[in-house]
């Protein structure tokens, strides 16, 4: 009963001062909306990264020379095909091992040309990286064994060189050497800022001949299961270190890449949300301020209520509810605005945004908590007012 009265009175107070209530809420609205938007964008970016890393294939282990670290320069590779055979023996299944030796080259077809990444690969690549062909077929073991000059084009390259025409069976020249197109990849889109349709695959042996090298840039292994992936990575690194004692090797899993990227994005999201949270705090100070005004304005009412039997906590509750109501209504409005802005950004701009229930619950919880924290002092002041003094107030 007393609670219901406090609730009714609090609502009534807000309604009696609509303009003031709305302006006070504005601070909270802006704060909550910006928290929601920034968390949505952070979450969206993180999901996008996860989706793309997962898209590289499952249980993937990438072995490269040097240390994998943010900011460290890639090391010069001294791996060659003999090392790949050694890794295959460690893995026990050559079909799970893929390699790459990449170079930026100009690819021509007739009068059209495209500068793209040309990768020398094994026939195992589609299985290891879960890549699908749109048209034609992929390289075969015999293509690799015989250094056959055949090429599989990324969707973007195919489009650039052949437009709507069917590239299968057509000739392209890579660094002046003619290759026959035998397949085109299904489009993949962007991944971590890289256009994954902008590449051409040729047999690794043909690439070695083309580039005049024997080197392998990196080895990727599709582990049989997630549990033994770290152990497998360690054994591969040990084998390669044995073969090249003066070179450091690293094996990274998707989980590690995800972890590192996720951590970075998590910190970024946290920082952004904290900055937005400051505006929520400022909004809270506004609520506190207006509540003190409200208490002063209604001093006589407080005195009267006390005279007829209201206890200090009845009065305190009434003002606390008023503050919480202010921030909660502001919070819900801010949430709606934030969700609207995030979804609009997601739909109309390249910025990814994902609304999560926890972020909404958090935003609402925080705004209600702001009401409690910043309403407590004015509420206590109201509750402790001396009724005689309060009744005399003008």
């Amino acid at each position, binding site marked *: *009963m*007393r609670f*219901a*009265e406090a609730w009714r009175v609090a609502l*009534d107070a807000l309604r*009696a001062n609509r303009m003031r209530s709305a302006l006070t809420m504005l601070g909270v609205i802006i704060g909550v909306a910006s928290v929601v938007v920034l968390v949505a964008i952070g979450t969206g970016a993180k999901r996008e990264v996860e989706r793309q890393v997962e898209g590289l294939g499952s249980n993937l282990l990438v072995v490269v020379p040097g240390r994998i670290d943010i900011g460290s320069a890639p090391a010069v590779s001294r791996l060659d095909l003999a090392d790949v055979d050694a890794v295959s023996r460690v893995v026990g299944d050559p079909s799970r091992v893929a390699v790459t030796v990449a170079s930026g080259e100009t690819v021509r077809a007739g009068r059209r040309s495209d500068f793209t990444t040309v990768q020398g690969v094994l026939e195992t690549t589609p299985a290891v990286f879960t890549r699908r062909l749109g048209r034609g077929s992929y390289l075969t073991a015999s293509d690799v064994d015989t250094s056959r000059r055949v090429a599989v084009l990324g969707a973007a390259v195919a489009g650039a060189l052949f437009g709507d025409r069917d590239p299968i069976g057509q000739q392209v020249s890579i660094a002046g050497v003619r290759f026959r197109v035998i397949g085109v990849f299904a489009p993949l889109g962007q991944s971590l800022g890289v256009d994954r349709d902008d590449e051409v695959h040729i047999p690794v042996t043909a690439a070695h001949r083309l580039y005049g090298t024997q080197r392998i840039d990196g080895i990727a292994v599709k582990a049989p299961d997630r549990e033994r992936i770290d152990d497998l990575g360690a054994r591969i690194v040990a084998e390669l270190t044995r073969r090249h004692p003066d070179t450091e090797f690293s094996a990274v899993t998707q989980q590690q890449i995800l972890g590192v990227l996720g951590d970075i994005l998590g910190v970024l999201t946290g920082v952004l949300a904290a900055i937005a949270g400051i505006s929520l705090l400022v909004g809270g100070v506004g609520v506190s301020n207006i509540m003190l005004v409200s208490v002063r304005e209604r001093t*006589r*009412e407080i*005195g*009267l*209520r*006390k*005279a*007829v*039997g*209201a*206890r*200090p*906590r*009845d009065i305190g509750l009434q003002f606390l509810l008023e503050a919480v109501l202010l921030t909660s209504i502001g919070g819900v409005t801010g949430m709606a605005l934030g969700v609207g802005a995030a979804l609009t950004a997601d739909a109309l701009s390249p910025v990814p945004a994902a609304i999560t229930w926890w972020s909404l619950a958090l935003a609402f919880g925080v705004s209600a908590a702001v009401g409690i924290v910043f309403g407590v002092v004015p509420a206590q002041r109201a509750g402790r007012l*001396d*009724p*005689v003094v309060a*009744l005399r107030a003008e």
Partner: protein
Amino acid sequence: MATPAIEAVDVSRTYQLDGVSVPALRGVTLTVAAGDYVAVIGPSGSGKSTLMHLLGGLDRPTGGRLVLGGREVGSLTPPELATLRNETIGFVFQAFHLLPRTSAVDNVALPLVYRGIGARQRRERAAAVLGRVGLGHRLHHRPNQLSGGEQQRVAIARALVTDPTVLLADEPTGNLDTVNGQAVLALLEELNTESGVALVMVTHDNEVAARARRRITMRDGVVVADSAADDPPADSAAVPDGPAAGGDADPTAGDGTERAEAAR
């Protein structure tokens, strides 16, 4: 009467104003019997309002003993005192003190809120009391839609809705014209005689005071005359110069009693 509604023994109240002590009440001893009708008179600043606040448990004495409805005020916590006010006291103020933007019936029902009574029952009881003060046709009017006299009658209904033992009215007609003042006064007296609620009323009007069953005259924070002193010895405990009063209060009280008697 067996239990007095209010019992004050050597009650004092000193305000602290910027480090200076302002004694508003200096040792007041009086008993309000159940169903009594007491008029409190005295010059401005003599401590009448201060006394009313103490008698109603709105304030605490800085000295002496005050018992309301059988409970010692000094031993009660603020919420306990609030509950005691709610159960035993009804206040009527000079300035009405009605909640704006709130209907007459909801104003009257307000004390019942703090008793935990449900909304429907609150309204029923409030409407009944409003009927009793002659405002059965004004239930949903807000204070600014009522005349001064009507507003004060709403305030009286609010004081009555809890069935208190004492009605404390501090200059209830002070903001009203003569006609409305008379009507409010008649209502208060009628309630006193009919429902037996004790009425303690501060007034500046000697004619009004003359109609009361008992008159208490205050000056400089002490009771200088109490017509109950003329009554049979049964009420002698309430006389200020009784043995309970402080030694220095005796001459003042004696002096005042003489003067009050001389005035009659």
